[in-house]
Every structure is written in structure tokens, then in C-alpha cells.
């Protein structure tokens, strides 16, 4: 490292940046590959990701009451590897299709959470002053609220707002409600973390320099702050994803799900209400439950590994 900073010419700056990025990426991949837990998590996620993208290829279209292929609550057999539900639908079919629904809800909820959290965090951290303290008051307020009960209360309010139409942008309204509810109740942690990182970046030299050469705050936030918090955002997104799948499962289980879109939580809800535990129909419960646990576990493993690699100092959770 040389002591005096010398501005390189603009054209080579971009090339240099790309070279550095490639180098960083290689280093990152190497370090990630050395984390066994992270790799295990990644493999699980990749598997579920593929399943979620093309469930039809594996098990054909989602079975409905009319297209069910079995009898009520058949135990696992050669024909139905995971048995059937009370309508005679194949549990394997439902679970595989459930992957798509659960993962999509998780993905969209994470997107809302992260965008919301990151924007608030960056703006608060960078702007400082009154805006910062106002935004952080709100954030702290949301951190204190028991999110799960808030989610339960918000669900009917949001359903009322999105209306009773069956679909919005091709997503069933009930699912939109769950996505929005998760988003509203979980952005605060992200905002907090991004803000503190932004605070430290704001003080760095290159931000001052950008300011001196006349860059506006919007430009600085986009071009200088954002690239430096993106690592954190990625790690946070992965952890949020786990939380979103977890929350979706729980909300569906207590009856806020959509019987026409069998996510894993919804399948478990159906299993519970059709009496599967008492009828000892373990095959109805085990596949979706194991999938939920695997996915949440995998996201947590990957998230922890990323967290350690990308932000060695930013550990600790709240």
C-alpha cells in the first residue's frame, strides 16, 4: 500500500475496478468453498431452487381434487412414494409444487424487506441529522413490536386494501397479503444494520472526495455507498430469506394461507385440520416439515458463512 493516494486516469479506473472485482470474487469463492457448512447449505438451496423452477418436470402438474391419483390417506407405496392426502392427492407432488410456492413467497418477501430496509438504512445513515433520527425512531419502534402478532393483525387489513380479487400481477391475493405482511414486519433489522455500515462509509476518504468534486447525495449513495454495503445486503438477504420461509410457514399453518396454493405451511395446516397426527398419517406431515427445516437451515448456514466471510466485524444479531 502506498501512502499517497493518486487518482488514476478515468478510463483505466473502470478496467481496474473490474479486475479488482474479479479478483475479489475469486477470493470470495475460494473462502466460501472452504466453509463446509456454507457449501452444504448452498447444495441444499441449489437443489430446492431447481425443484422450485421446474416442478412439472419432476412430478407433472399440481394435482387438484379432480386430478388426484390416489385414495384418501394412502400410506407410502411404490405408486405414491410419500403417500396421499385426504383428497387422494400425491404428497410428493404437493411437496414439490409447495417448494415453488414457499420459495416464491420467500423470495418476494425478502425482496420487499431488503429494498425497504436498505433504502431506509442508506438514506438515514448518509443523510444524518433529523432525517436519521426520525427514521431510526420508526425503525426502533418496529424492532420492539412483536412482529408475529403484528403480522396476524395486519393480514386482514392488507387483504382489505389489496381487495378480494383473486389475483394481483398473476399472484394470488392471499399470497400477496402474506408477502406484504412479512415485508412490513421484518425490514427494521436490515435498516439498522445497513445504517451503521453506511455511517462508517460516510466518513471514508473517497466519499469526501466525491463530495468535493460536486457529486450530489443521490449520486454518492448510488455509486459510492451502495457498492460498499452490497456485501452486507447480500448476507442480510440470505438470512431474511430463511426468516421469510419460516414466517410464511407459520402464518399459513395458523390459517392465513391459501388452500388453492399449497405452500409447505399450507400442506401442514391441511394435515393438521384433516387429523393426520391422530390418524398416524406421518407421511402427510414429514415431507413438508422436513423441507421447511432443510430450507431454513440451509439459508441459515449460507447466511452465517457469508456473514463471516464478507463482514468479519459485523457479527451479532438483533
Amino acid at each position, binding site marked *: 500500500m502506498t501512502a499517497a493516494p493518486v487518482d488514476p486516469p478515468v478510463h483505466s479506473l473502470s478496467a481496474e475496478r473490474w479486475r479488482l472485482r474479479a479478483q475479489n470474487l475469486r477470493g470470495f469463492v475460494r473462502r466460501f468453498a472452504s466453509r463446509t457448512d456454507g457449501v452444504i447449505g448452498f447444495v441444499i438451496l441449489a437443489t430446492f431452487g431447481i425443484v422450485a423452477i421446474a416442478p412439472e418436470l419432476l412430478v407433472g402438474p399440481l394435482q387438484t*381434487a379432480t386430478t388426484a391419483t390416489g385414495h384418501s390417506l394412502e400410506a407410502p407405496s411404490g405408486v405414491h412414494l410419500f403417500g396421499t392426502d385426504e*383428497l387422494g392427492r400425491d404428497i410428493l407432488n404437493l411437496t414439490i409444487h409447495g417448494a415453488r410456492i414457499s420459495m416464491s413467497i420467500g423470495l418476494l418477501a425478502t425482496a420487499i424487506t431488503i429494498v425497504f430496509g436498505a433504502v431506509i438504512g442508506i438514506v438515514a445513515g448518509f443523510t444524518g441529522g433529523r432525517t436519521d433520527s426520525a427514521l431510526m425512531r420508526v425503525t426502533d419502534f418496529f424492532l420492539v413490536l412483536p412482529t408475529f402478532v403484528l403480522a396476524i393483525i395486519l393480514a*386482514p387489513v392488507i387483504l382489505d386494501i389489496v381487495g378480494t380479487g383473486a389475483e394481483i400481477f398473476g399472484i*394470488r391475493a392471499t399470497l400477496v397479503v402474506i408477502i406484504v405482511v412479512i415485508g412490513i414486519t421484518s425490514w427494521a433489522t436490515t435498516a439498522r444494520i445497513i445504517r451503521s455500515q453506511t455511517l462508517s462509509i460516510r466518513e471514508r476518504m473517497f466519499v469526501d472526495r466525491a463530495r468535493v468534486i460536486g457529486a450530489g447525495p443521490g449520486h454518492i449513495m448510488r455509486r459510492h455507498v451502495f457498492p460498499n454495503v452490497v456485501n452486507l445486503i447480500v448476507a442480510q438477504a440470505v438470512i431474511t430469506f430463511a426468516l421469510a420461509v419460516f414466517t410464511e410457514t407459520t402464518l399459513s399453518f395458523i390459517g392465513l394461507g391459501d388452500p388453492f396454493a399449497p405452500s409447505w405451511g399450507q400442506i401442514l395446516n391441511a394435515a393438521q385440520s384433516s387429523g393426520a397426527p*391422530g390418524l398416524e398419517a406421518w407421511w402427510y406431515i414429514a415431507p413438508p416439515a422436513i423441507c421447511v427445516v432443510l430450507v431454513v437451515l440451509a439459508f441459515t448456514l449460507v447466511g452465517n458463512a457469508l456473514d463471516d466471510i464478507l463482514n468479519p466485524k459485523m457479527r451479532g444479531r438483533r
Partner: protein
Amino acid sequence: MNRSTFRARAARILMTAGLAFAALGPATAPVAAAEPVVLRVGTTQDLDSLNPYATLLVVGYEAFQLTYNLLVDFGPDLEPVAGFADSWERAADGQSWTFHIREGMKWSDGEPATSADACFSWQFAIDSIAENGSGYLGAGYIDPGVEEAGVTKVECPDANTMIATTDDASLRILQTYMPIIPKHIWGAETYATIGEAVFDAPLIGTGPYTAVEWQTGQFLRLQRNPNYWGTQGYADEVDIIIYKTADSMAQALKAGEVDYVRGVNADQLNALKSDPNIQTVAGSANGWTQLAFNTYGTGTGKTIKGGGPSTPALLDAAFRDALGYAVDKQTLVDRVLGGYGDLGDTIVPPVQTQWHVTPDKPRTFDIELAKQKLDAAGYKLDGSGNRLDKENNPITLRMYMPDSDDNYPKAAQFIADWYGQLGIKVTTQVLDSGTLGELVLPPEAGDGYTADYDIELWGWSWNVDPSGELQIFKCDAIGSSSDSQYCNPAFDKLYDDQLAAPTIEARKAIIAQMQNLIYDEAVYDVLYYDSNLDAYRTDRFAGWQNQPTANGTPMFTYGVLGYTRLTNAALVPTAAPATEAPGGATPAPSAAPGDSGAGSGDSTPLVLGGLVVVVVVVGYYLWRRRQGAGGTMKDEGEE
């Protein structure tokens, strides 16, 4: 070494603790002779109120009809039998009824029960009707019966006589669900306040059992009324236990923790059948599950801005009729109800054998025929296979259902598929009951209501008299109870005619005509008449009496019959009929837990005691562990 012994010790402690708890099941509890006989009845309905005027649920009706008598009760086949009144007769001119209240009857607190109580209770409904028309007393379920019975005045000339003035020619007055509550307790209430009054247990009644303790969401305890005038059942106490799921309820029945369960599903019922001590019963429900088509504008030509049916096709009886051929009701009963139910046709459930008729022109399941009928009625397919309405717009029907029954979304999947085969797309959505109830309201109900739906998949359940199910198709039900928005003056006239019919035969004929009218117009597609799937244990109680005898269930029916007929199962081999079973004198069967002693009512000492015990145990454990663990760590030190 140390560590493993510690682990082994911990494991042993856990095992013993677990087994100790497990071993102390009800089955092994000591038996004492003086122990009360408790009948435990399970339901998944969460009791909402002990106030008879406020409750909306079957379990609430069960609670109040055990505590309070009706003036006239219901027999095994719903025939009138003695209730608060011993006997009754209609005046020769047909303008009044005289009810004789039995002499010497007492409330459970020992106060005399007289005609003054009967007049006091009936007066609520008469005042309410006189002031507002019916539907204003409490939740509005009780006074309509009095209005339909045509009662305009009640008088009580002496302590044992109540005279009701009515010009109604039918026997409806004997089926009126009006609980007689004690005037000496509630005398200060009026018809306007009684619906909001707090009925805190213990309650004072004349019924066979009176409510003594209610823990919301958990249970209601009712104890034998020592002053009950009629046949006493074997049970000294009736506990209505509220289960969160039918599953845990079915488990409890198998384990003997409960004697009777109401409302299990088909799979559970089949599983319970294999238990030799359990009897299952599939009673025909006095109700149905239906598709209600939004026909807003029928007969009036009115439309709703930003609401109403999405296609005028729904107003066309020929269109709705054609849809009826696309629904395979046998499949619905087999697959959704597991075979426990009857195929739906008219709007009077078959359990009302006196009134139900099969349609004159029944529809069959025939998708091809449905297509032909749609074509013939002018609903053509477009190039991509969508059915078009007469304005050439593709028909997409929005079907909504409440979240109160898991079977609704199952049935909806079938319907959507069958309509889909006709080229009609169906979008389905589950809503909570309150939201759906408001969604189907038209502007007649108030500003902001737009009846913005096409099909409502929901159900109804009814009283003994069929006028309720006829009422909801009247023009003036639009804006309140109508979920089809159907209006047809001819139907309204028939409704008035059947109320005024001079004889039962005449009324039957009119009601048959009304059933056929609604069926032919296909305002509703009644999918099925669900069954009530109940089960009960036969090893403790005998004498279970279905009501009605042919197709009913022993409990959650009309009146108190099922409870008063119960006998001791241990005495059954002699096949003694249910006449009398003195409580307390008979030793209790071994399945009942515990001895007499401290009641289970107040949980405060339990809470405090539990806390103390746990604190002591945990403290001791931690202390021991600290001693032990310190040693373990020391021994393990390697460096």
C-alpha cells in the same frame, strides 16, 4: 467417566419423571363410591356466550336448552312433549293457545317456577316485534319464531296458566325456541337490554342441568339440577369440552377422556369405527352446502355501479340451469364428504321429511348436455375455447367461500374444474366469514355495499319449521340475509300463502311448489346435505337416543331428550330401559378420574403451587449441577 454417569443420571431422572406423569393417567386413578358421574361431551365449536339471546352457535343452544326449558320440548321424532308447560290446548275458535304450567315446579335455586316466568320470557319477543318487527331481540334468532307463530299477546291469569293469542293456523307455536328464564333473576331487563346482559355461570334454570362454570375456549360445566321436574339422566354432571381440532377430540374419545364427540371428519369416523367401545353416527344435517348465484337485478332490472354479477348471464335461468348439469354431486359426496351426506337438490333438507320433495325436473350430471344447453341458450364458445356471454365477453366467474369449513375449498376445486370443461373460467378465493358476509351485501344493505361476487359457496342450517330456508329467497331479504339477490313476486306470494295455509296438507303443497320453483330457476345449486358425524363411547353410558330416531344424532339436537335418556352402561345387560338412574348411589365406572374433593375450578393455587414446586426443583437441580458439573470440569482438565 464422570460425564457419562451424569448423563445417565439425567436420562434416568427424565425417564422417571416422564413415566411418573404418564402412569398417572385417568385409567389408574383410584375410584371412590361417592364420585359424581360426569358425562363429557366434546365439540370443536368455541362457545361464544351463555346468553341465550346472544349466542350464534349450536353449542350455545345446547348450553342454554340444558339450563332453561322451552315451553314445549321436542320428543324422539321432534313431536311436542312436555317442557316448562305440562300440557296445552288450542282454543276452539283457533285464536289462542292455553299452556298449563306444572304445579310445584321449582327453579334450581328453590324459587317457585310459575307462569309469571313464562309470560315474562315470551313478552321479550312480543315487545321486540311490536316495536321493530322481528329480528331485534339479542342476535335476532329467537323472536322470528314467535312472529311466525303469529303470537301477538301472552297473558298469565294465574300461576299455572299462560294464554297466547295467535291467529296462526299451524302448530308452529309448539316449536318456538323461546327459553323460559327466571323472572326473579332477570326481572329488571327489557327486550332491548336482555341481549347484552351478562349471563355469568352459575345460572338458575329449570332444565335437567344448569351451567355452573365456563372457561372460555376450554369447557363449560353443567351440574344436575336437583329440582328438575322430569326424568333424570344417569350423569350428575355434563361437561362440554371445547377442542381446537377434531383430531385431538377424536384422540380423546379413543383414550376415554370424553364420552361423546360432535363433528369429526369422515376419515376419523372410519378410524373410530374399529373401536368396540365406540359407536359412530352419521346424522342428516338440517342444512346444506350450496352455490349461490348472484342474480342481482332479477325481477327488478337494477344494476350496481362497480359491483354486482360480472356477467348478465348469471341473471339468465337457462344459463344457471345448464351449469347445474356440469356438477357431479355423487362425486362431491364421495370425495369431499367421504360418502357421509346426501346429494343436494331442493332448498328444504330431506331430514325435514314432512316438507322435503324431490324435484319434478331433476338435473343429471352430463357435461355434454350442459354444453348443448349453453349453446342452445345462446352462450357460444370463442376461438380459444372460452364461453361467451350475450355481449360477447368471455365469462369468468368469481367464486368466494368462507374459511369456516375445510370442505368448501375442496368442493370448489371440483366445481372450477367442471365449469372449466364448459369453457367457463372460475377464480376461487377463501375469505373469512365476516368479510364474505359483507362482500355479498348489495346497496340495499347500506352505502358502500356492492354485492361484488358471482358465486358464493357457503352453507346454511335450519330450524324444525321450513320457513327459514324459504325466507332467504324473498325480495325483502335482499340487503340482509339473501345471498342470491333473487327477487320473484310469485315466490313471495307463495311464501305468504304457506304461512297462512289452513291445513298441513295445503302448506305442504305450497312448499313443494316453492322448492320446485327455486330448483327450476337454479337460483341455488344445493351441492349436498352434509351429515353430522358424531361418535360416542358405549362403555360408560347407555341409552343413547338419536333424534330424530331415523337419521338424527343423540346430542346437539332439539331439546334435552338425549341427556335425560342416558343410563349406566354397567346395568345394560339386563336391557333395562331408561327410566330412572339415581345419581351418587351407583359406584362410578373406573374410567372416571380422581376422587371427590377439591373442585377443578380455581386454578390460582395450582399456579402458585406449580411455580413454587418448579422453582424449588430447578433451584435444587441447578445447585446440584453446579456441584457436580464443577467436579466434572475439573476432572476433565487436560492442560
